[in-house]
């Protein structure tokens, strides 16, 4: 594909020229960044590490109407809303784009989810490579990287005064054309490659995932889970901020005679998640739920889809109020397994 560039100070102009797209980009909301629809391009910033709430909310929003109906109506034909305008996510980090490719597996599995699909097909992803990965990032361990191109239509590199843009797909090319980007030369390309290499070297944490999907189920009854679940608050922040967590609850809401069926994010960390109508709860304590979450991401999901449901973005580590560190859990699981193997 092609190599392009634009001056960083022209960012607002570039975004304004994307008239055919609905553009989502990182905007500062107080001290925190979030991917929001851009109304004022001047508010978009590229000086950010990553958003707290992952851009998964752009593909599967926190609350989404599935269909509307009137109470008493007996012939409900749910209409999936049109995809609408073309969308563009500007500045998404490689880990979050990789997360979309992982979640695609699920939303295309036994039932192709039209709501998700429409958005996914309709969206161009313009990524933003990380020059300075955060201390808790470990994306290379999971097949990603600070400059990983997986799942992206184009990737940008911050070269100081200019942004170097490498297009990867036709959609990316269409974006470059629409934004009127000028061509970049070999110098920028080489500099970007160098930055990518240096960024990879800056990643401080890692985990060797070989064998983890296979050995986690064998540790089902192992007490090592308790050292983490004992301090888990079941708050759900890890799931809400995780770009690959995708569970949702479906509820009906009525206002007078108008009603809708909506889905909203749910979390396996709440005890109500598995509460049966009978009152029985197969995951009654935090031990079961913590064990389930890690096992789902690192064992059950890869068993079905051949990919670990984690991208190493580090948000769960950064925002867990009680410092439950997924890398710590995985390391301890390996130690537990080694001990079991010795005594076996």
């Amino acid at each position, binding site marked *: 594909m092609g190599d392009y560039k634009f001056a960083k100070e022209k960012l607002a102009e570039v975004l304004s020229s994307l008239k055919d797209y609905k553009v989502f980009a990182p905007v500062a909301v107080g001290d925190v960044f979030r991917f929001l629809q851009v109304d004022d391009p001047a508010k978009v910033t590229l000086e950010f590490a990553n958003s707290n709430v992952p851009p998964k909310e752009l593909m599967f929003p*926190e609350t989404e109407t599935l269909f509307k109906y009137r109470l008493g109506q007996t012939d409900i034909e749910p209409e999936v809303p049109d995809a609408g305008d073309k969308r563009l996510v500007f500045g998404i980090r490689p880990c979050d784009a990789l997360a979309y490719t992982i979640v695609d597996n699920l939303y295309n599995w036994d039932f192709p989810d039209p709501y998700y699909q429409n958005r996914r097909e309709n969206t161009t992803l313009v990524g933003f490579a990380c020059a300075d990965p955060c201390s808790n990032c470990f994306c290379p361990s999971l097949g990603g990287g600070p400059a990983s191109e997986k799942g992206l239509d184009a990737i940008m590199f911050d070269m100081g005064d200019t942004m170097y843009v490498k297009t990867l797909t036709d959609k990316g090319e269409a974006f470059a054309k629409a934004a009127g980007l000028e061509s970049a030369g070999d110098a920028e390309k080489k500099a970007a490659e160098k930055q990518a290499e240096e960024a990879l070297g800056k990643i401080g944490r890692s985990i060797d995932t070989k064998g983890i999907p296979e050995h986690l189920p064998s540790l089902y009854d192992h007490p090592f889970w308790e050292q983490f679940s004992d301090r888990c608050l079941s*708050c759900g922040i890890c799931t809400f901020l995780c770009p690959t967590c995708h569970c949702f609850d479906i*509820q009906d809401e009525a206002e007078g005679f108008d009603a809708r069926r909506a889905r909203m994010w749910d979390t396996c960390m709440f005890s109500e998640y598995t509460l049966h109508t009978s009152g029985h709860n197969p995951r009654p304590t935090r031990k079961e739920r913590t064990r389930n979450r890690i096992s789902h991401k690192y064992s059950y999901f890869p068993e079905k889809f051949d990919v670990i449901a984690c991208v190493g973005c580090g948000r769960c580590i950064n925002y867990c109020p009680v410092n439950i560190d997924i890398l710590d859990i995985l390391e301890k699981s390996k130690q537990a397994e080694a001990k079991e193997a010795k005594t076996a």
Partner: protein
Amino acid sequence: MVDTKRLQEKAKEVLIRDDVRRLIGWKRGTYGFEAAPTVITDASQVDQLIFDATCVQNPASFISLEEKKPVPRGAEPDTRKIAVMVKGCDSRAIVQQLVEKAYGRDDVIVLGIPCRGVIDRRKAMKMFGDVTPGNVSLNGDKVAVEVGGEKKEVERGELLMDKCMRCRYPNPLVSDDLLGEEVEKWADDEFADVDEFEKMVPEEKWKYWEEQFSKCIRCYSCRNVCPMCYCVECVVTKMKPQWTRRSTDISENTAYHIQRAWHLAGRCIECNECQRVCPVDIPIMTLNRKLTRDVKDMFEYEPGVDAEAEPLLACYNPQDPEEYIM
């Protein structure tokens, strides 16, 4: 100053007792400016225990978090005690939980630690970046932080949590053992921030809160980290009847925050954990502190101070104030 060795010795003493099931304290975090709470059951694990300005979490939240599993037939329930290490603000949670009879005084062993302040992670990251510090210590009105091999000293107010700058109870209000020397109260709390907020007219206030509540993703971390939110079934997740829908629009988000602030009226002990954990930086304490101040002014009541007191809304005074009542 807290001597780590003494802390660990005391923990060991407590853990080898027959009548103690577990001990909750803090250990070194895996990164950054915050420690990690830890639950240990064996005296051999006491080496991990620490106490310094990174010990920001409230261990009192974990006492009620422990699930009560059904007891197998023929077996006796485990009635052993839980030992908890607490700072001044955390001890208020224990006192308030005792007031509400969440458990009995004999069910816990409180190891009190007089505290001179804890670090605000957000301030620290702005100041030092995304790093993990070495040694952290409080010296008078300065905080000394070892970063990248260098020792840096900053003013208390620039690095510690705002709550510490107005801490009225640095010494634990209930304890079986004090693991350090009592410290002087730093300042009195005049609730100046609440007064400042009240100067706004209703339209401005709503504009402010509408912006804040629109950010909310209803992760309920504020509720889960709160030591006073220990209901087995919470009103916000109740389905029959459903008070608050799960959709994240301004109506439900506002209702959720008002509900939670209301349920904390006369119970919030201002540990500020809710505000610390919020991933979208909603100023939750601005709501709670308003009620804390009004409860103090109207009913002369302060939660978490006197274990013999009655809960605020379980008692009344025939001379209670009656403004706005026709």
